[in-house]
């Protein structure tokens, strides 16, 4: 993504709004947009989901391949996440090799899931040292009106939780659900008009500062953190965000698990 020229007017406007604790679309500082989760939306994927948060729409698809386990983990399967944010989803996203932003998106979503241990990698073993399932998670943005991070993370978990390992097609046993034991969820915060807000719109991202992404597990354990963009924040600011993330992640988890 080419960095858009920061419109100073937008920045000023956002600062003004912040003074009366308002936001562009009338939400409160820590209020999220409505989240709609649909699963089973992709006919060719073994697990899939569509998530809509306002005008942000994303897809997630889970595919399986058979891999040779790594020599140092002969009984482990694999997991990889690919986020190619293509120019279809917004005028500010350009064609070409993955931008640093897209790379970061994929890596942060991947880490939250991987580090939570929600997928039992040992369960993906087919034949020790020879064959194991590789889970490939592709997240795909259709419409970017801000906060792709959370949309991707939510769609990813919804797709994984409904994925079926295609044993029959690969002639290695019966089809069975991918075992996903936990539901790590991500909440993202942007500095807008001086203070952090939750679930930023695209225009808040453009006129805002640094962002913080938090992935929490079922038991509020921290699995992944990422600070992005230029900016400095205090320990007190972080504590406030973390407290909100604990309650909001639980809400999102309910949405995905049901």
């Amino acid at each position: 993504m080419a960095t858009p020229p920061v419109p100073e007017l937008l920045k000023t406007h956002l600062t003004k709004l912040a003074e009366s604790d308002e936001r562009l679309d009338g939400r409160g500082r820590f209020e999220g947009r409505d989240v709609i989760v649909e699963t089973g939306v992709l006919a060719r994927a073994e697990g899939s989901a569509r998530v809509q948060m306002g005008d942000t729409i994303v897809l997630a698809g889970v595919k399986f391949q058979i891999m040779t386990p790594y020599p140092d983990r002969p009984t482990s399967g694999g997991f990889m996440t690919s986020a190619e944010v293509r120019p279809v989803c917004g005028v500010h996203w350009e064609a070409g090799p993955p931008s640093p932003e897209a790379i970061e998106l994929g890596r942060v979503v991947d880490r939250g899931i991987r580090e939570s241990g929600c997928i039992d990698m040992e369960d993906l073993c087919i034949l020790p040292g020879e064959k194991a399932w590789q889970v490939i998670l592709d997240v795909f943005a259709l419409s970017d009106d801000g906060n792709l991070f959370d949309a991707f993370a939510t769609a990813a978990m919804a797709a994984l939780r409904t994925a079926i390992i295609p044993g029959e097609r690969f002639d290695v046993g019966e089809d069975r659900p991918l075992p996903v034991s936990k539901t790590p969820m991500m909440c993202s915060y942007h500095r807008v008009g001086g203070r952090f807000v939750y679930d930023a719109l695209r225009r808040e991202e453009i006129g805002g500062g640094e962002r913080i992404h938090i992935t929490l597990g079922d038991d509020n354990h921290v699995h992944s953190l990422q600070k992005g963009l230029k900016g400095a924040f205090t320990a007190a600011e972080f504590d406030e965000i973390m407290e909100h993330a604990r309650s909001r992640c639980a809400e999102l988890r309910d949405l995905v698990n049901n």
Partner: protein
Amino acid sequence: MGGYSDVQMIDENGIRVDGRTAGEIRPVSINAGIIPVADGSAEVIWGTNHVIAAVYGPMEAHPRKIQKQDRAVLDVRYNMAPFSTTDRIRPGFNRRSREISKVTAEALESVVLTELYPRSKIRVEIEVITAEAGTRCAGITAASVALADAGIPMTDMVISVASGKINGVVVCDLNKEEDNYGEADLPMGVCANSGELVFLQMDGDLSPEEFQIAWDYNMEAIAPVHEMMIDALKRSNGGDE
């Protein structure tokens, strides 16, 4: 083209594996305005195919070396999403998608009034979400609707359909299963009003007579799809366009 003609894909009554007659296309549904942040957008669900198109612009063309002094350039990208096929597709352009992007751009340039926007660029993004034979045709059709949805002036709308041959019989609009055993593929892009062609490819084997039948099947499919396109645009614009 596969060409394993010993698999029987058409029964004695001329009925195909999915119940269609020779000249019948798959069920089609079209919706416009499905990507909120785009200037125009559409989805075409054609059988199991699910293809999305988004249009951005006209906008300033940069870098400057791609600018045309007398018209807008159409920057078209056709892409298959990694999860669109049974075997996952690794991201990144390949020769096939480059060629399809090129012929699609050339088809659309033939109807868009690009001379109204000198030095500018119109981005057309075609994404295949689910693929089931005939994605390039569905892509051109979707892009045509998305351009109209974006309010880009055009002389005509392009509808694209392909006919083919299977078990030695010419049929319209091969589905995936048929395509695996198909003996020919003739995709065409036709202007709804003028009847002129702006897109044409073909591969396989068609005798002069078979070729004519395939050509005619395609031509017959244009009008009903055109109706659906107009209907989608009407719905997207509150029914009063």
